[in-house]
């Protein structure tokens, strides 16, 4: 084996230009597929992070109740006192089960309302946040005007800059908000614009923020009640597992109904937009108490993940096509190699080398060229990704949602690299196999005469 390895390795250096061309072609394929994998990995990570910030957490719990008149009301009345579990309620007990996984636990309410200032009005997602009990929230906002409200500012409003522009409202102005209560009644609240903030990546998803207790009053959920419980996890990859535990512990809608609900509204906030008022059809079974729905960041990401999976498959197909073209070159090269080294093969066979060992030398040589190309391709890909990740892109476009602080980021999954290398190696060996087998089968007497 040592002798074969030594010969195969040194043979790669015999025709340096030819080896460089083959390895170069292979490295181009590796470069393309690695950068594409890195791009989809990076964008996927950025979107997940942006969505986590936007929605607020990794696992989202919403609750629905049924009134006597069969109205479905979005509300959670169970107590989960100040982020700590163990309040004796079903929700508190369920949360206690996964307490070790939870980094932060936030109560939110969210509704789609109409903000009115003078003759202007805009529709806006209004999110109630307990920023007194959630002290990390306000400092996380990027202010563009005004100042962060203090704990006493009960009706403070924090608006995305675009909404403030459309309303032509300035800091300190009074703004009316028309919202629907959880039972579908119209209600009007009065807010004072405290600050404007930068848009989140996608303007349409940007929320206005108000105090949870004041919004609770407006939407009529009652003091201490809320609509959504958001869990930030220490390890976001555990989101599905945590959700499973919660689903097992909490009363939830039957599977078929859950599927219908999922299809009807944005994930994470089922029914919360537009007042969330609907009536239970007469043919459906009513329920008592609160019924919970648990969704995760993975559910939110599912469609995007599907898209990235398709992109990964497309890049893999491109890679295989590029490699297949390259492998035609490998086959031809090794046919030439067979003719060039036929006497050498005859000598090795005469000296006592078995056919399999001759074949192995050819295959090892192809493997070395493949690995050389792969290594070079990975280095090129790393350099390309480094350069691309240093470019700062326009921060005012929706593209921002896919970026990290205005920059492209790349995350190459090690499994993809391993898969690509395995495919590359397999194709290299396959391409060299037929010439290798032919070389091994040439009778020594024929090979020593210099013909194949």
């Amino acid at each position: 084996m040592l002798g074969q390895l030594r010969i195969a390795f040194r043979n790669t250096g015999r025709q340096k230009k030819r080896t460089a061309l083959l390895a170069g072609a292979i490295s181009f394929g590796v470069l393309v597929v690695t950068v594409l994998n890195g791009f989809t990995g990076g964008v996927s990570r950025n979107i997940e992070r942006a969505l986590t910030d936007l929605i607020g957490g990794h696992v989202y719990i919403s609750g629905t109740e049924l009134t006597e008149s069969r109205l479905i009301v979005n509300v959670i009345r169970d107590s989960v006192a100040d982020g700590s579990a163990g309040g004796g309620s079903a929700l508190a007990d369920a949360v206690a089960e996964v307490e070790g996984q939870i980094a932060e636990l936030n109560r939110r309410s969210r509704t789609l309302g109409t903000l009115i200032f003078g003759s202007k009005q805009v529709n806006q997602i209004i999110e109630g946040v307990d920023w007194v009990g959630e002290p990390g929230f306000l400092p996380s906002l990027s202010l563009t005007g005004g100042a962060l409200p203090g704990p006493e500012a009960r009706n403070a409003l924090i608006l995305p800059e675009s909404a403030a522009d459309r309303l032509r409202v300035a800091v300190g102005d009074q703004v009316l908000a028309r919202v629907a209560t959880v039972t579908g009644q119209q209600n009007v609240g009065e807010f004072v614009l405290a600050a404007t903030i930068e848009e989140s990546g996608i303007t349409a998803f940007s929320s206005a923020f108000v105090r949870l207790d004041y919004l609770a009053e407006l939407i009529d959920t009652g003091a201490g009640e809320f609509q959504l419980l958001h869990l930030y996890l220490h390890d976001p990859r555990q989101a599905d597992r945590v959700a499973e535990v919660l689903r097992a512990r909490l009363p939830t809608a039957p599977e078929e109904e859950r599927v219908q609900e999922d299809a009807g509204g944005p994930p994470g906030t089922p029914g919360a937009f537009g007042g969330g008022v609907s009536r239970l059809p007469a043919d459906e079974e009513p329920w008592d108490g609160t019924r919970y729905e648990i969704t995760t960041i993975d559910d939110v990401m599912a469609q995007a993940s599907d898209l990235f999976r398709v992109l990964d498959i497309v890049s893999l197909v491109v890679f295989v096509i590029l490699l297949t073209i390259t492998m035609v070159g490998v086959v031809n090269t090794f046919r030439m190699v067979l003719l060039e080294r036929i006497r050498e093969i005859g000598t090795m066979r005469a000296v006592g080398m078995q056919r399999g060992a001759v074949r192995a030398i050819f295959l090892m040589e192809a493997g070395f060229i493949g690995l050389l190309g792969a290594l070079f391709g990975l280095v090129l890909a790393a350099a390309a990704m480094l350069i691309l990740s240093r470019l700062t892109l326009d921060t005012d476009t929706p593209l921002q949602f896919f970026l990290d602080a205005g920059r492209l980021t790349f995350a190459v999954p090690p499994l993809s690299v391993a898969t690509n290398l395995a495919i590359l190696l397999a194709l290299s060996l396959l391409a060299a196999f037929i010439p290798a087998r032919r070389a091994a089968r040439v009778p020594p007497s024929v090979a020593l005469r210099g013909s194949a």
Partner: protein
Amino acid sequence: MAAVEVTDVRKVYPLGKTEVHAVKGVSFTVEEGDFVSIAGPSGSGKTTILNMIGCIDSPTTGTVRVMGTDTAGMADRAVTDLRHQVLGFIFQSFNLVPVLNVTENVEFPLLIGKARVPKAERAGWVAHLIDAVGLDEHRAHRPAELSGGQRQRVAIARALANKPSIVLADEPTANLDSETSEQIIELMKRMNAEFGTTFIFSTHKPAIVAIADHVIRLQDGLVTEEFRTAAEPPA
């Protein structure tokens, strides 16, 4: 036991629609330790006979026994093993592996067999062979950096690496000047004496033939003369 027994061997090659009778019924015996020259002009069948003794080619009819083994009908793997264990080869064009240096070329046969020779023992034996053929100062050189005579010395050392019973040399001096040719044959003779290895070489040069103990002369695929210059073959 005879090292080689060739009995009524014929070899016919197809050539288009005709046939070439390269060897037309040859018989001879080579004893262990012999230093044999197969002499004859070009096309007399020397290389064909050496190839058949070396299990590189097989006779059309007749039998070839190498160290008592009838080589007819052997599977490729068994024949390859026989070549590796019993035979050494020296070629007219040296046929060294160009990407290996002198030491690695000599060591090469020791790395490809089933038997594993310990590294230290292997290195010692290879160094001894290189020293014996006078290439001590060139052990790290590749074939392209050596003269024709030096390359053939490497080939001789490589042929002896596996301690074979028989070394076959096909026109080992054909590509060398007369002075170097004599040195190479003398070296082979010395190796024959030192290691007791049977040497069978083909040549068409009369001066080289004269050095052999046992001469088999061929003409048109037939043995025309066979004689020994020494009174008794070596024990």
